[in-house]
């Protein structure tokens, strides 16, 4: 008893640490270090804590948004005319770009059809607002204002229009936690856009996204775009992840290189996100409609290229080439298959021995016989000794 009284402080500390160590051991049995959702009991504890904090976060978010929107509305009104003009110019540029991209998409679709490739397209999404963070730079987790009541489930991909943000880790009734791609426990399957090298993107202690499972390769250069590969079954294929910022040997994991990726999304400033709640093997109806329109336009363009132009510099003469009569194309006449005239050379004005038809065939010549034309001397053979 005297021992307990004397060392009560230390014993209390040991008891507290032991209890927490046991709690940690129970959690670590589940794969908490790989960004997977927690066990049921831990999830409940987190849910209660989140429920307690969420009203404050929502209030702070609402106040912040109110002030921010009030100010930005005022600024927007001042510059709305100029912005409208800029946006119209941008729209024009983007329509031109869209036409070019549609051509590439068509080509890609044809190739995919050839390979019987099954693509996963974004089927349905839920828009959400970021209302909080983990508050620690060692844990990159966002809290969003949508939960399982809105159809959110763990491991759903979270994106913005710029690229991927992360994936859903825990889901509560009205909120969800998003594990960002630069968190230490995060991982994503990626592919380098131009070299088509597949890799795994992970977060680092410094809060950066890094590819660490590739050996040195001279083809990989800074600035190369990184896309999702779709191999992780979380992110649909082809979403922007970021661009390669730097490539350096990884001293901890030789012979691999540490390829730091600058995220396409500003993860510190993300406000609104889209949660991909469903994927499908076909394009969404809107995108399918756009693609069909682009396909029709493409076909029309191709036909226009193949048909003779109405503004040719030298239209064919009515008599045709070398007197060939063109097919009748009078309106109302039955369609006659077009005969493409074969061009013939014009008659020679001053024929010589090189003129076509002036030389007798080889079968009519006798070896050793004199030159039938006789006027031309054979050319001296430079190899013959004098």
């Amino acid at each position: 008893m005297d021992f307990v009284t004397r060392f009560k402080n230390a014993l209390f500390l040991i008891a507290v640490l032991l209890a927490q160590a046991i709690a940690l051991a129970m959690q670590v049995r589940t794969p908490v270090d790989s960004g997977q959702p927690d066990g049921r009991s831990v999830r409940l504890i987190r849910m209660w804590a989140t429920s307690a904090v969420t009203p404050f976060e929502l209030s702070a978010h609402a106040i912040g948004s109110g002030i921010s929107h009030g100010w930005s509305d005022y600024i927007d009104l001042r510059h709305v005319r100029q912005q409208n003009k800029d946006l119209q110019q941008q729209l024009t540029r983007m329509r031109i770009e869209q036409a070019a991209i549609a051509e590439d998409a068509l080509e890609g679709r044809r190739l995919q059809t050839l390979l019987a490739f099954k693509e996963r397209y974004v089927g349905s999404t839920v828009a959400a607002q970021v209302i909080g963070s983990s508050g620690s730079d060692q844990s990159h987790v966002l809290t969003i204002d949508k939960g399982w009541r809105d159809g959110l489930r763990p491991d759903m991909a979270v994106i913005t229009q710029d690229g991927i943000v992360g994936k859903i880790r825990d889901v509560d009734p009205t909120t969800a936690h998003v594990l960002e791609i630069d968190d230490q426990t995060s991982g994503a399957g990626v592919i380098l856009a131009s070299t088509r090298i597949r890799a795994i993107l992970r977060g680092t202690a410094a809060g950066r996204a890094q590819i660490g499972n590739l050996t040195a390769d001279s083809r990989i250069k800074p600035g190369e775009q990184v896309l999702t590969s779709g191999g992780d079954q979380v992110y649909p294929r082809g979403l922007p992840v970021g661009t390669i910022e730097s490539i350096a040997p990884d001293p901890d994991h030789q012979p691999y290189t540490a390829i730091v990726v600058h995220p396409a999304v500003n993860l510190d400033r993300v406000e609104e996100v889209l949660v991909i709640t469903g994927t499908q093997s076909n394009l969404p109806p809107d995108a399918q409609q756009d693609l069909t329109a682009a396909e029709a336009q493409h076909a029309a363009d191709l036909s226009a290229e193949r048909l003779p132009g109405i503004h040719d510099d030298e239209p064919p003469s009515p008599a045709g080439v070398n007197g060939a009569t063109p097919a009748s194309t009078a309106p109302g006449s039955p369609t006659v298959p077009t005969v493409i005239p074969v061009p013939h050379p014009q008659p020679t004005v001053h024929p010589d021995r090189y003129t076509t038809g002036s030389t007798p065939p080889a079968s009519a010549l006798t070896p050793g016989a004199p030159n039938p034309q006789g006027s031309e001397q054979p050319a001296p053979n430079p190899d013959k000794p004098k």
Partner: protein
Amino acid sequence: MVTRSYMSRREVEQQSFGLPVAIFVPLAAILLQVLLPRLLPALAILDLPLVITLFFAVSRRSPIAGTTTGATIGLLQDVLTSQPIGVNGMAKSLIGYAAASLGSRIDVENTATRALLTFGFSLLQSILLYLIERRLLGIRSFHVLWLHELLRAAVNTVVAVPIFLLLDRTKRPE
């Protein structure tokens, strides 16, 4: 004639706080820790819960109270992050115990001492977190950037000094 008593330094200088202060100040610190990085991402380097743990531990000068405060604040912090629950709890329990033990031996009312304490305990927490993550949990991918941790300690120190002065006003009068 001056009367002298044989009370220890701890008994003389133990401070107490009202229940609202003891509950709402740590909660406010955790809430601010969650909200501030949303406004300014660089503020994620700050560890307000650690500062509050240190303040209550050195003020109360009771290792049991310090351990309890540290464990509670740390566990609440863990719940809101992606880390396993108990990582910050264990680290801050130890910090609370050590700070309270130290607080009963040295003068912690001095600003320079408080700054030094905050800097030292901030670094100690980084070491503890590293040990817990790498050794106890066996997460090999966990790395600590020590220059970053030095910067964190410096920032915590700068923030802690005015917060300590502010919270001194909440102490219950003797």
